[in-house]
């Protein structure tokens, strides 16, 4: 790889062992990709909060040693300097207030809080959400970023026109310390054109519609770049958040275009860069039905133990929708209703009385984590209901439960009645 003098100095150890290790890792990663040089990044989102189990696996005596192995791939404990460029923490393993709900011990809670504090001491902003773009980290068009979290990367790439690949824990940690990532993939303008044309022939309006479309598109295009033609109603943040999260889960979509709506294409032709698509795919009623059936493939029993809303983390519009659906009613005694929102938005929920409304109805508002990342469920939970295609894809696999997928309304109804009665309209 071609390195600048500054990058060479980092690799030669002028900025200390941790920066040297970070640059060495980025060079090996860049060579594995086939990249020719690095690109400067000033916006990094990563994940460096560790549980005691992770620390034990890494045989780390302290938090610096855990960061060295788990974040920088160094078995040797290093002294970790403060970050070189603005950096934030994505979703983590624990709700810092309601950790007892997760079944964590006092000792686990203390260890995770210390790990969080270690990140903070490096200058990593503790947003603790999978959706930094909902709480103030909103990259601008053309901004080179190094973000983890596939649902966030596809959002900032597509909706905002930022430039990031889906990075991993180790590459984002290295980017935090160096301000560099390999110049490869979606950092290059020529790789940002659409490869697959999706002709959408059914109305796509609700959040559930967008989740279904995303799930199907991801299965069809894998990790390539779709352009959607035939979208007649302008979606909003929530709908595109769910679309991208679904497409990034069933496939590996990191960038898509919706002409006239997303950042980089006014027309289908512009999205395709003047080239013919590799494939033209039609999304009609049968395709929509197939996506629905795939998402419900693990579900059999109608008695629901947990309803989970907020994957990716819900915004205020979604929390308020749940409040309204619950009005005057109560969650079933044998069912839990959990809603996940970023900590920063939780403050607004508290102020607006939404938290009280949810609590009175028997629901619980959580932050900082989710059942898939934190790996927790209510004791004995076997069947969950989800309004997120992403969570319906992952949670049954990770936690060994059955997962129903449906609309937010169907999910809240299931929480109230204790049974799944949702379906495809």
């Amino acid at each position, binding site marked *: 790889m071609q390195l600048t003098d500054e990058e060479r100095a980092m690799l030669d150890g002028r900025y200390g062992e941790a920066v040297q290790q970070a640059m060495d890792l980025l060079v090996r990663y860049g060579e594995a990709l086939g990249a020719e040089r690095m690109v400067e990044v000033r916006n990094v989102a990563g994940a460096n909060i560790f549980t005691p189990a992770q620390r034990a696996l890494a045989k780390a005596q302290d938090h610096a040693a855990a960061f060295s192995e788990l974040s920088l791939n160094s078995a040797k404990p290093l002294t970790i300097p403060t970050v070189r460029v603005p950096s934030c923490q994505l979703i983590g393993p624990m709700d810092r207030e309601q950790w007892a709900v997760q079944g964590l011990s006092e000792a686990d809670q203390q260890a995770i809080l210390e790990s969080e504090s270690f990140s903070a001491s490096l200058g990593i902003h503790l947003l603790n959400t999978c959706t930094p773009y909902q709480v103030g980290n909103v990259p601008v068009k053309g901004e080179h970023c190094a973000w983890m979290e596939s649902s966030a990367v596809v959002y900032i790439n597509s909706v905002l026109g930022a430039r990031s690949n889906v990075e*991993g824990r180790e590459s984002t940690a290295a980017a935090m310390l160096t301000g560099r990532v390999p110049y490869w993939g979606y950092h290059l303008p020529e790789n940002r054109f659409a490869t697959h044309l999706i002709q959408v022939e059914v109305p796509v309006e609700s959040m559930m519609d967008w989740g279904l479309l995303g799930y199907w598109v991801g299965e069809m295009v894998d990790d390539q770049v779709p352009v959607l033609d035939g979208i007649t109603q302008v979606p909003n943040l929530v709908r595109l958040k769910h679309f991208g999260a679904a497409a990034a889960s069933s496939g590996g979509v990191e960038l898509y275009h919706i002409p006239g709506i997303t950042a980089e294409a006014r027309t289908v032709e512009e999205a395709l860069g003047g080239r013919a698509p590799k494939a033209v795919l039609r999304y009609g009623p049968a395709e929509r039905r197939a996506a629905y059936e795939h998402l419900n493939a693990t579900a059999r029993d109608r008695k629901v133990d947990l309803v989970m809303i907020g994957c990716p983390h819900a915004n205020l519009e979604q929390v308020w929708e749940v409040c309204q659906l619950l009005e005057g009613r109560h969650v079933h005694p044998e069912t839990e209703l959990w809603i996940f929102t970023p900590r920063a938005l939780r403050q607004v929920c508290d102020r607006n009385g939404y938290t009280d409304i949810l609590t009175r109805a028997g629901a619980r508002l959580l932050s900082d984590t989710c059942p898939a990342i934190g790996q927790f469920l209510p004791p004995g939970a076997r069947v969950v209901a989800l309004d997120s295609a992403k969570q319906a*894809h992952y949670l049954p*696999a990770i936690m060994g439960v059955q997962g129903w997928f449906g609309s937010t309304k169907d999910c809240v109804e299931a929480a109230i009645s204790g049974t799944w009665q949702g379906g495809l309209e």
Partner: protein
Amino acid sequence: MGRHIVLHGRKVVGGVAEGPALVTRQSISGWGGVNPRTGTIIESRHELKGQSFQDKVLVFPTAKGSSGWSSIFHTTRLAGTAPKAMVFNRVNTKVALGAVVTGVPAVTDLDQDPLEVIETGDWVRVDGDRGIVEVFKADPDEAAPRA
């Protein structure tokens, strides 16, 4: 020993390792697709669901899904459940970083499609530094002749 086939490609991670192949035509999810404590595929509708890649040469199209791919495969190294080597068709950030932190030999951009040439159970030797994948077919009687 059955037929011997040599594929030539590009180094992703150096080193030499060999073992029995575990082949899938479906992309692999790391986080939410693999249990790193056992090296087992757990994705709900994956054709390898329930099978472990520990000590196998994993042959697959590419990585997909969550950005946790590298940290899951990093964990397989720490837990001793990592594959012996990786052979894949298409590079992306997840699989490139994942291969680097797993620290096992890995090769891509091969001159023949490894998914066509290699079958589960074949003995495979991966020389990451030279970008060479040697395949020893498991059973010559059952291997169909190829043009």
